[in-house]
């Protein structure tokens, strides 16, 4: 197992945001996590990548403990993260965004005396092509459309070349066509990387969920299974329907 999570819990001001008894991920697996709002999906990824500190529990990545490490150390272990809200460097060009992300030595002196190499340029170009960013290479990242920003962030994660990618709602705010393209891309990436994807869009989930899907509800793991199993599970349906009803009632 690449990732092993046991008894992980965190709470904010008395509310249990996450209380996960067990979660594991194989190498080169693409796992989709679904669940209603506030189920603790993003919090789970936050804990893995070091943004949020867990109250208790352990996370083993390649057999090494992740909890308690800094974001940088975790990134160096080979975990990359794409956020729900696209997080890029708006004041830099797309090219510079990609250049900063690319895997290389990242200490001060290497940065100060960095010289671009042909191999690196090729790599950046290859990833940019894959994500249709070549035409906007020298545009400020802040001036990109929402979808382009999403792709840029994915490109940033890809260039980091992590073992495990944590992708939070990649299809949010995208057109159907873009969504499909994103799905295809994720599937391709999963050949070389382990990926955890959080998604709401069931159509998209159906496209990419070739293996297991995990359902989180109120911070707990409700069930785990193939997409078909999950789709037909009564508890999952209740949970989603109940949420819809609740929303209808409040409106």
């Amino acid at each position: 197992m690449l990732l092993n999570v046991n008894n992980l819990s965190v709470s904010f001001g008395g509310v249990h945001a996450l209380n996960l008894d067990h979660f594991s991920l194989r190498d080169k697996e693409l796992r989709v996590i679904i669940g209603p709002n506030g189920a603790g999906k993003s919090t789970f990824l936050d804990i893995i990548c070091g943004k949020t500190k867990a109250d208790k529990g352990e996370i083993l990545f390649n057999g090494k403990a992740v909890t308690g490490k800094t974001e940088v150390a975790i990134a160096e272990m080979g975990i990359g993260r794409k956020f729900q809200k696209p997080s890029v460097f708006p004041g830099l060009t797309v090219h510079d965004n990609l250049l900063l992300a690319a895997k290389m030595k990242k200490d001060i002196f290497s940065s100060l005396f960095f010289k671009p190499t042909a191999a690196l340029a090729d790599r950046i170009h290859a990833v940019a092509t894959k994500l249709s960013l070549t035409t906007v290479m020298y545009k400020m990242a802040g001036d990109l459309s929402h979808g382009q920003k999403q792709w840029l962030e994915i490109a940033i994660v890809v260039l980091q070349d992590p073992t495990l990618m944590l992708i939070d709602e990649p299809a949010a705010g995208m057109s159907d066509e873009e969504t499909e393209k994103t799905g295809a891309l994720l599937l391709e990436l999963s050949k070389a990387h382990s990926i955890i994807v959080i998604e709401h869009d069931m159509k998209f989930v159906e496209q990419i969920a070739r293996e297991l899907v995990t359902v989180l509800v109120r911070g707990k793991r409700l069930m785990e299974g193939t997409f078909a199993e999950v789709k037909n599970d009564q508890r999952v349906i209740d949970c989603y329907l109940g949420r819809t009803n609740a929303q209808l009632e409040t409106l």
Partner: protein
Amino acid sequence: MKTKNNPLYYILFIAIFAILLPAGYMSGLISVNTISVWGRYFCFAIAALGIDLIWGYTGILSMCQAFFFCLGSYGIAMHLLLKKTMATGAVLPDFMAWNKIETLPLFWQPFQSFGWTLLLCLLVPALIAFAAGFVLFRSRIKGVYMAIITQALTLAMWLLFLRNETNLGGTNGLTDFKTLLGYDLSSSSVKLGLYMISFTMLCAAYFGCYRITHSKFGKVLQAIRDSESRISYAAYKVVDYKLAIFVVAALLAAVGGMLYLPQTGIITPGRMDVKASVEMVMWVALGGRGNLKGAVIGALLVNFLYSVCTSLFPDSWLFILGFLFVITVLYFDKGFMGLANSIKQRFSTGSFKTSQTPL
């Protein structure tokens, strides 16, 4: 939109300050006083470059640059004062003799040698910046918190330097220097020399900062400014980068201070009070932050205005500066350089880009 680097700006700048002004002095059109005054502005501009690096590029508003500036000044001042004291045959600088101090305090000892002085002038601010930065950045203090804590740090140091017991001359500071490395500070040629050194240092500092900001290191800094979390998930140690640039900025401020001292002839804690530290940031804000040219021009222009206005409009110069600050922040958030760029664009493209002036 990046403006292409037009070498003409540099030619113009060097022509005015390295040729026109000294030539004006030689021919008697411009007094040595004016030369000295501009030499001092250059020192401010050097410090302003540091502020631009830390604030404009990295997004950390540090209000303690004035303190680092003073550290540089005080170091050189201590050396000059000891030299002068030795020349007159006394054992201690006169203010210490009045304070009934018998022996030279330990921390004054190294300043008897010029080499040590230079080293300490750079080392002390760097170490303080490192220590303060380490504590502040490690605990992820940023934004407003950073600004206020550094301002409070400056305030505390100001209070400390005001005290006579600190043995740095209290409110009177250090003054009345005679020679630097044997050159008479009051002679016109030395003043011109210091002016040229300051100008050269400014150019060197500019070049250095230009190289830094255009390297990948500079891009990491801007990335920190834009999204600190993103860059740390990309495996960059943000604390290291911040610390490095904080130290560089402190060094630039100290260099400015070191050159400032012999041209002004006095350093007092007044150089690092709340007013002084905010004003230093204002130079960069007015010139245009995140733009090295802006920092230099801002520092030169604001100080020039200050000198002129205090003579011409003693009652209303504060209004002029105050309004300038408010209007710049409100309407030209990229400062003079942003304004100049948008005007230039208007001329070159015939259409006014409103994106430059958000309302």
